[in-house]
């Protein structure tokens, strides 16, 4: 039996009926076809499914779609215009510093990074490494991910400074 939910995803409102057991990540991927959010594990560990709920990073594999009724969600697809023009500074950072290889962990990694930069716009290397404790990357050894976030922090700081 479907439960009606209303959610705003990447600025667009949706009213859908969902099975109670439907996980948010499957709602995003299978119902809304937003496949940028990935599933890498079944224990809430890998962070590939990280999205923002009302501006805070969350693992969409550990949330039922019914729980986000009334919430605002941002996925990787919501970071920049659909044509990929005008990349968000975090996307720019990952590109410039080669913070991704296979790209599978990347959306979750960026969404977790943004949560950090919101709380701490100028993090140290150790703060960055600690903030990524909920996200696994198997390709980069994290070295360039750290640099990517530093790169983004610098540019986001500039944006704020220029108002």
């Amino acid at each position, binding site marked *: 039996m479907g439960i009606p939910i209303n959610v705003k995803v990447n600025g667009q409102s949706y009213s859908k009926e969902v099975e109670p057991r439907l996980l948010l990540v499957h709602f995003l991927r299978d119902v809304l076809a937003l496949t940028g959010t990935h599933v890498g594990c079944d224990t809430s560990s890998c962070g590939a499914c990280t999205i923002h709920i009302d501006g805070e990073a969350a693992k969409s594999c550990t949330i039922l779609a019914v729980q986000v009724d009334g919430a605002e969600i941002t996925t990787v697809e919501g970071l920049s215009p659909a044509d990929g023009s005008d*990349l968000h500074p975090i996307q720019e950072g990952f590109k410039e510093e080669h913070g991704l290889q296979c790209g599978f962990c990347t959306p979750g990694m960026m969404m977790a990074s943004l949560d950090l930069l919101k709380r701490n716009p100028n993090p140290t290397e150790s703060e960055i490494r600690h903030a990524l404790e909920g996200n696994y990357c198997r390709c980069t050894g994290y070295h360039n991910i750290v640099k990517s976030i530093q790169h983004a922090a610098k540019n986001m700081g500039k944006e704020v400074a220029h108002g």
Partner: protein
Amino acid sequence: MGNYIGKSVKRVEDKRFLTGKGRYTDDIVLPGMLHMQIVRSSYAHARVNRIDTSAAKAHADVVAVYTGADIHTDGNIIGVPCGWQVNFKNGDTMKEPPHPLLVKDKVRHMGDAVAIVIAETKEAAKDAAELVVVDYEPLPSVTDVGKAAAAGAPLVHDDVPDNLCFDWELGDKAKTDAAMETAHHITKLDFVNQRVIPNAIEPRAAIGSYDATNDKYTLYTTSQNPHLTRLLLCAFVLGIPEHKVRVVAPDVGGGFGSKIFHYSEEALVIWASNKLQRPIKWNSERSEAFLTDAHGRDHKTSAEMGFDAEGNIVGLRINTLANLGAYLSTFAPAVPTYLHGTLLQGLYTTPAIHIDLKAVFTHTTAVDAYRGAGRPEATFLLERMIDLSAIEMGMDPVELRKKNFIPAFDGVEQEGYITQVALQYDSGDYHPVLDRAVEMVGYEQFRKEQAEARANGRYLGIGFSTYIEACGIAPSAVVGALGARAGLYESAQVRVQPTGSVSVYTGSHSHGQGHETTFAQVVADKLGIPLESVDIIHGDSDAVAFGMGTYGSRSLAVGGSAIMKSIDKVLEKGAKIAAHKLEAAEDDIEYSDGQWTVKGTDKSIGFGDIALTAYVPHDYPANLEPGMDFSSFYDPANFTYPFGAHIAVVEVDPDTGKVDLKRFIAVDDVGNVINPMIVDGQIHGGLAQGIGQALFEGAIYDEEGQLMNGSYMDYTMPRADDLPSFEIDRTVTPCPHNPLGVKGAGEAGCIGSTPAVVNAVVDALAPFGVRDVQMPMTPERVWRAMHNGNGNGKA
């Protein structure tokens, strides 16, 4: 020319990944697609007496339930094949028991597939799979390779005595025994190179689709190796002609070896898509991935390294047991043999080497190539032995290595180095990498700091590792003689479009390596055209003529060389057309910066004009075909041999045994470098995986054959805060036998790093009398080592 090669060009492929537009197998939805769930064994070894599928079949939305009896009576389906044959010492062929798609009689490891449930939704497939009732009769099992090789062990396959798949040796036994007989000092160590689980973050997935009107199948799969998968699937599993199957490996979320192999799930979705005339998707859950992705390593070794009185290595004698798991995965027999035994020369002039190896079946998941594949095991062995030898002989580990290094040779002026174990190294200059790494770490200063720290009850350690690997896999004739059932060349097609842009079709497959950028850099430079005018197409057997895929650090060395061959053909034909257009002799024409020019004149014609002429051949050389589209196959003349020196600096907390990796220095020589940014990234990632094996990772099986740490809650992989930023540099010794002079960088980090970390921990614990710590060096293991050393917990 020269605008792109050697520059850190930002990756062309990034935009789609950064915006969530990557297209991975699980992102693909086909009309009418069904979902497959696999019923897997929770026993390591059990007789399957009866499978009751009636409740599952009756479940809402279930379309079909199949068991081994259904599949293996359909046609002549035996199972997934092995791609490499190794013979026993006495010449007998290895034991090659069938690897069924679904078991019929017995399960042989936890996770072995028993039945498949196919339903309209993944929810229904999952729910119904729980309703399949299997009557198992548990049997005794064995997971440890040593126990499996011992007399009286439970048998994995009834017709494989002693669980012995094959025994094998390499090197001169008599010479080695004689050398050890007269050695001044012999270092001995028994150790385990533990089983690790690859864990690409994208779990495997496959979609099978059958188009009855054209009698054509499409397989979307998470593969590093789509063409080989097609070959094995068609010719060896299902008996379908290859032209009737298209295999697509779209964006793939990491592989590290585990996605090279042809897996039974690929055959199952294709087989069932025909039965049901609907597309079928299977997507592995992580817990399933732990049980079914081929694992890596798992060697048990006794090693002896002999020295003369001056510290020269005189002999190396090895006995290894290699765990193959329950079934032979695609390349499994090659890994402990031709990718391991052949690397035991390392960087040293050891004059006598012998390895005796037994490859053994156990009730565990199949073991196959994992990043480095055999070469990390060989490097670990050599580098632990030489470090331990330095301790035992009271020598400095750097000096002992340098004393034994093979002198420099470029492979052009000087011959390649012929080893005691069947290889000829291409080119090498080993002192500079170690010298540079020692300089970067500040070795002398470190020893002072270490002494001061020890006086204050702090335990710092430094560990070295110098390695060589055999990459650019591989000369087909050589590997064929060694048992490979496939050639290991690569193909490339360079299609110049009429308006001068270029599409390149490569048999290599990128799953993170950045081929769309690196290959484009090569093509753009060689043709003198903008990078934006080049597109790299890979991973689709309908688009790409053929391919042997990406693994063994082979893409640029073999795939890149194939592209170079096609580029040569383009330029050769271009010169003919240009000569005609410029009314000059072909010998008087030269090509540079996208222009064919008559030497010594300002008469020239651009690449785009020549391309157009080739497709609109109105004013055209006689007897020349129109078009400009060239395929090439490149079969390398030799392996390539990257090498390097890695140094780890650690601090051990004496209270807890926890190892803090403080610094990691890597100086690698991977030959010429096309994109330094990408090569650095490959090194970083390899380091993390190698360090992961040293400190964190390792499969744990209990007595009943249950995998005890088959989830991310229990299997530890390095996180960002477990690692430092890496300090890396490189030297460049070009490969003399391929056109780009490249050697390969994908595995280097993973090969060199593991023993460096272990050596560093052993060095840190020297005051406790510790000479070895079993990997993964968990805090408890390190703590115990401190308390079991002759210091009994006291430094």
